[in-house]
């Protein structure tokens, strides 16, 4: 669409700009401020340069949290994206079951995050939880509060439970938008179901799948509440992801300098990756 050049359009954007600026710029400046200063209490601050950044970047604690975060994010992407697409492919496209499926599948998305954590905690308890009890009855030695491996298994299962529906809904929306004529043409050419998937469905889903990957990447990189309620970062530090570590430092220990430096590094990582995704996405749109 040809857009008209009109500088007065800024007036329309102004309320949004003011509100978001108030919420984003002031806190961000606070963080920048703390990240370059040192304090011995009494609100007296000294310039400390890049000391905190150095300290955070070289600390083993931050590196480990970052590695755990990357493992977590890529594991759930590797599971949720193919699983979501597979489920979307098998969903009915017409009929009375469509709204039923959509409503039931969207349900986990609308449960407050701490309730998701609490629910999975109760569900996975080894003695009285359905999952924990069943696994132990089947002969697995399962206890997510004491064994790191089990904690990770529960964490990833929880995230798959919580967010796969988002991928399903997006992929499904992409599938529904394919006209029937495409399938008829494929039928005439004698294409099998794999060929249909590879050459018709997958290219048509490319756009929505990019968005699904983008959203799942961002949100899993920021995950806090569910993990904090389910495992609290434990056992030990085994499930301490980036944001859990950050909240521990910032609100638990009130170590303003390191917390601020870590915040900025954390935010920059997400910003950089979101820019990459955004560019790729926009290029897809232009084609």
């Amino acid at each position: 669409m040809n857009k008209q050049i009109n500088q007065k359009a800024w007036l329309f954007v102004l309320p949004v700009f003011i509100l978001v600026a108030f919420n984003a710029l002031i806190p961000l400046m606070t963080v920048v401020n703390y990240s370059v200063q040192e304090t011995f209490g009494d609100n007296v601050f000294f310039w400390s340069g890049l000391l905190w950044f150095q300290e955070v970047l070289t600390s083993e604690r931050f590196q480990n949290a970052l590695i755990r975060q990357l493992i977590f994010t890529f594991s759930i992407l590797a599971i949720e994206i193919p699983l979501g697409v597979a489920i979307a492919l098998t969903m009915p496209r017409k009929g009375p079951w469509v709204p039923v499926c959509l409503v039931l599948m969207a349900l986990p998305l609308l449960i407050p995050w701490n309730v998701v954590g609490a629910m999975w905690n109760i569900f996975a308890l080894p003695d009285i939880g359905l999952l924990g009890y069943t696994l132990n009855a089947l002969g697995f030695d399962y206890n997510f509060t004491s064994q790191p491996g089990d904690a990770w298994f529960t964490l990833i299962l929880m995230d798959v439970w919580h967010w796969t529906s988002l991928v399903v809904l997006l992929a499904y929306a992409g599938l529904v938008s394919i006209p029937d004529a495409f399938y008829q043409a494929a039928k005439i050419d004698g294409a099998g179901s794999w060929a249909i998937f590879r050459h018709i469905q997958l290219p048509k889903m490319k756009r929505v799948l990019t968005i699904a990957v983008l959203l799942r990447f961002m949100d899993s990189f920021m995950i806090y509440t569910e993990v904090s309620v389910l495992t609290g970062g434990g056992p030990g530090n085994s499930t301490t992801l980036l944001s859990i570590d950050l909240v521990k430092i910032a609100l638990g220990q009130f170590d303003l300098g390191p917390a601020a430096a870590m915040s900025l590094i954390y935010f920059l990582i997400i910003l950089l990756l979101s820019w990459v995704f955004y560019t790729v996405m926009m290029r897809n749109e232009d084609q």
Partner: protein
Amino acid sequence: MPQTKSWIVPTLYIFFLMLPIYWLVNMSFKTTNEILGGFSLYPKEFTLENYITIFTDPTWYTGYLNSLAYVGINTVLSVAVALPAAYAFSRYRFIGDKHLFFWLLTNRMAPPAVFALPFLQLYSAVGLFDTHIAVALAHTLFNIPLAVWILEGFMSGVPKELDETAYVDGHPFWSFFIKIFIPTIAAGIGVAAFFCFMFSWVELLLAKTLTSVDAKPIAATMTRTASTSGYELGLLAAAGTLTIIPGAFVIYFVRNYIAKGFALGRV
């Protein structure tokens, strides 16, 4: 699309989704004794005690009212300011438009954990700490960008001829915008409001950080119960079950719009 016995996969998936929810509901109807007594697939001593406690104890039910209050304020505010902005982005070119749009989106990607502490200081400084307004304003950080993004998608789908015809007919801009344009994109507003509701309803870190007593969200009340008064799992489960209900209602009412909103890929 070829459909051969494909109902099995979605059915299994939905079954998997329902299991933890069933377990939560199951727990909510049990007495504390039964829960601690051992494993059982369904409540043997069926009780409504947990729900009665929640509906009669003000520390519990005010939590729900607080949550609904800030979610409501946030949804109305986000959609209201996002409407003109989305119109500007979809119809006009102006200095800095692309940068502004990307900058807005980056806020959708800002981790709440980064903003928790500065928000606490900012809202304390302006005297809004522990009010519904504070949480509602804080949640606009990610909900306004989202609403602008969704609405811009819907508005770009409306042909520009609609605007031009209205001008020719002599409608002043605001009358056109309110009487003609907004009803045209009602579905988009529904989807945007739904997602604002959703993300404000499920977020806890900021809501908890910015409140202490007067505006404490239900989710934070639950956290307190879990940690201080021992193992009141039944009560916790009942409170959790009740938090699912508003979401279920909302999703039922907007189910037809959702698929449409997702189809635009703007969520």
